[in-house]
């Protein structure tokens, strides 16, 4: 099974299509502007830096003990009656989930929002096995109706405006067209509620898995997460192995960072903590709870001290909200489950660099992402590392990422070795500079995409090296005592 619905080499084509679509551009610009100002307002009264330091430290502390914490999590959950499964790949995770469903004779599942399940294309897998999977998060529901993929990790349908959503709901569900967001939401809810009552299995993601207490935390706004995890007789939580944290008290700062960074909320409407199936004296809750822990390339990241930072991510989406590239091309152009800056540093590990060819280069390294990341992931630095891996550009530090060297090309290497020949030798550089000033009238008028919208700058008549040589010589003569 392919992990991708959109072929990755189409990044350029996807970007092009988005840039040429004024509606998509407006939708993203407006949405991102809104999210940026909401985040800024939510942190306005906070000393943000110490909180980000704390968030980063919590995640690093957890990652440092990852194998141990995962075992602790497993042991505690098992003690509480939760069955824990390990999946090496996304496909394996899909099989585990399918098997659980089939063992129960399940025909339909209702899903809360889970990016990991998107990553492994769970819905398609289940449908192929004859199990209906319905998304219950409003954004995911819209994306599913439209037969699309999420364009944002927090707001899956952010690429659509109200009109488009109204149209879609009308076509697919017969809802009366309307501009009233509340009406549209209520009508979608109505359809979903019925499904909740009849679904055999609920599948959710996990925001934090607390090792110390064996608690699965789920952050959401619509109540669909609570229904997913409590109404059907069986709940399956699925998550990447990196989501584990040490202690319950670590949740508070991470949650404060997550909701504010993501949507500018001080707290979400719902915060669920799942630690066991329904107990004898409880009135509701599933009779069976499963946790599926997915590796899917994560442990390979874990082997490398620098790349490890990638795994700190708490999936808040702030990096994409603040990314000037994402803002202009939207999430679909990336062709990957996770778009934007986090996608650029994560997807090459999940898919290999061959598959994510153009992602690491599609950045100006402006650093807007790292500036807002609540756990201080040095995203530009990681992009730089991936660029280096793509061309095997560092003989002192061997490449490690799957598919490294994919961008190694003799022409590119030739360019940089000529560049080095000139710039590592001052005389050669000065000679080349002089030559450039002499040829300044002969410069080409066209330079690829640059001159499509810009003029080319003209080399100076004299380089600063030349000017300063003259100047220093003059000063010297002036200082010499006259004979």
């Amino acid at each position, binding site marked *: 099974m392919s992990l991708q619905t959109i072929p990755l080499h189409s990044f350029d084509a996807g970007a092009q299509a988005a840039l040429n679509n004024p509606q998509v551009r407006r939708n993203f610009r407006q949405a991102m502007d809104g999210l940026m100002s909401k985040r800024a307002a939510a942190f306005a009264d906070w000393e943000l830096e110490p909180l980000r330091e704390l968030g980063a430290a919590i995640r690093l502390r957890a990652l440092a003990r990852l194998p141990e914490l995962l075992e602790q999590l497993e042991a505690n959950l098992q003690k509480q009656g939760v069955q824990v499964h390990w999946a090496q790949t996304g496909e394996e995770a899909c099989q585990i989930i399918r098997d659980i469903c089939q063992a129960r004779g399940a025909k339909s599942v209702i899903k809360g929002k889970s990016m990991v399940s998107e990553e492994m294309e769970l819905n398609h897998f289940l449908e192929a096995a004859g199990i209906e999977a319905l998304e219950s998060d409003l954004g995911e529901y819209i994306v599913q109706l439209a037969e699309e993929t999420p364009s944002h990790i927090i707001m899956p349908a952010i690429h659509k405006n109200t009109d488009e959503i109204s149209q879609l709901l009308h076509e697919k569900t017969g809802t009366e067209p309307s501009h009233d967001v509340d009406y549209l939401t209520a009508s979608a809810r109505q359809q979903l509620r019925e499904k909740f009552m009849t679904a055999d299995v609920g599948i959710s993601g996990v925001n934090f898995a607390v090792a110390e207490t064996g608690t699965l935390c789920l952050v959401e706004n619509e109540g669909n997460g609570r229904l997913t995890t409590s109404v059907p007789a069986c709940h399956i939580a699925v998550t990447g192995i990196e989501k584990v944290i040490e202690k319950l008290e670590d949740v508070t700062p991470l949650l404060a960072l997550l909701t504010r960074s993501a949507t500018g909320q001080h707290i979400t409407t719902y915060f669920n903590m799942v630690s066991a199936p329904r107990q004898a004296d409880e009135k509701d809750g599933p009779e069976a709870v499963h946790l599926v822990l997915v590796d899917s390339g994560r442990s390979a990241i874990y082997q490398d001290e620098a790349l490890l930072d990638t795994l700190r991510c708490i999936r808040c989406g702030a990096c994409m909200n603040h990314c000037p590239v994402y803002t202009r091309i939207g999430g679909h152009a990336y062709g990957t489950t996770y778009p934007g800056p986090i996608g650029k540093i994560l997807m090459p590990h999940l898919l290999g660099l061959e598959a994510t060819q153009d992602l690491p280069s599609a950045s100006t390294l402006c650093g807007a992402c790292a500036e807002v990341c609540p756990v201080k992931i040095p995203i530009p630095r990681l992009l730089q590392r991936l660029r280096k891996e793509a061309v095997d550009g560092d003989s002192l530090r061997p490449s490690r990422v799957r598919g490294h060297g994919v961008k190694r090309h003799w022409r590119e290497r030739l360019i940089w070795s000529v560049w080095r020949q000139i*710039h590592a030798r001052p005389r050669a550089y000065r000679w080349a500079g002089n030559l450039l000033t002499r040829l300044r009238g002969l410069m080409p008028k066209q330079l690829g995409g640059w001159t499509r919208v810009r003029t080319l700058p003209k080399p100076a008549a004299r380089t600063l090296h030349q000017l300063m040589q003259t100047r220093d010589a003059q000063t010297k003569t002036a200082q010499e005592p006259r004979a």
Partner: protein
Amino acid sequence: MSQALPPTPPTQVIFYATCLVDLYFPDAGLAGIQLLERQGIQVIFPQNQTCCGQPAYSSGFNDQAREVVLAQLEALAGDCPIVLPSGSCAAMMKHHYPELFAGTPQAQAIQALADRVWELSDFLLRVCQIQLQDQGQPIKVAMHTSCSARREMGLAETGPQLLDQLSQVERVEQARASECCGFGGRFSLRHADISAAMVADKAQALKAAGAERFVTTDCGCMMNIAGYTEKQGLGLPGQHLLSFLWERLNAEGQAPEEVGGRS
């Protein structure tokens, strides 16, 4: 998180031109040198300097970058501060050199070099505590602070503070001032369409703010934005901040010193 000031103001600095200033905007370099000299600082210009190595480094060619960096290490030997008319190249030297050489025999020497590096406008403002007397005509100017200057060097306020010393300059602020202009070195060629969309927005924001001119400390951004405004006929030229400051200190319109033309 700004760079610690030296205990006593230095009397001598090394001027590192950066390749773009050297080859395309030497007037910005001269302006910087003259601003320093006006503060009574002796400026040394090592003829063996070339490029900071950033183009190769940001393309992933660390081996080639390292060799070029070693040539700079040799050219910039000494103890005095090294000043650069570029936030991006200053950040390369200050923050990326040590990373590039971590664990190598040169690591210590490279760190010592990095510690001496200053972005020139920051150096003028905080170390020299420059006082600017404006001699020019009234003008509306917008500052574009590059992403490296803003985020890697922490200099978001530096350019504006210098401009605000000029009595005849009305500094206007463009919308989304902190957003990248879309240059990004090879990004502007490799992902030309995205870059074009970014620079278009940036130029329009500067224009909409009512700026007659924009200034910046990074020549990459300047080539990008000014190249765009020129081609589109927006009537919004760009200038290096140092050239602009020097121009304001002297009679309006007067270019920096003509080298070789004087007795």
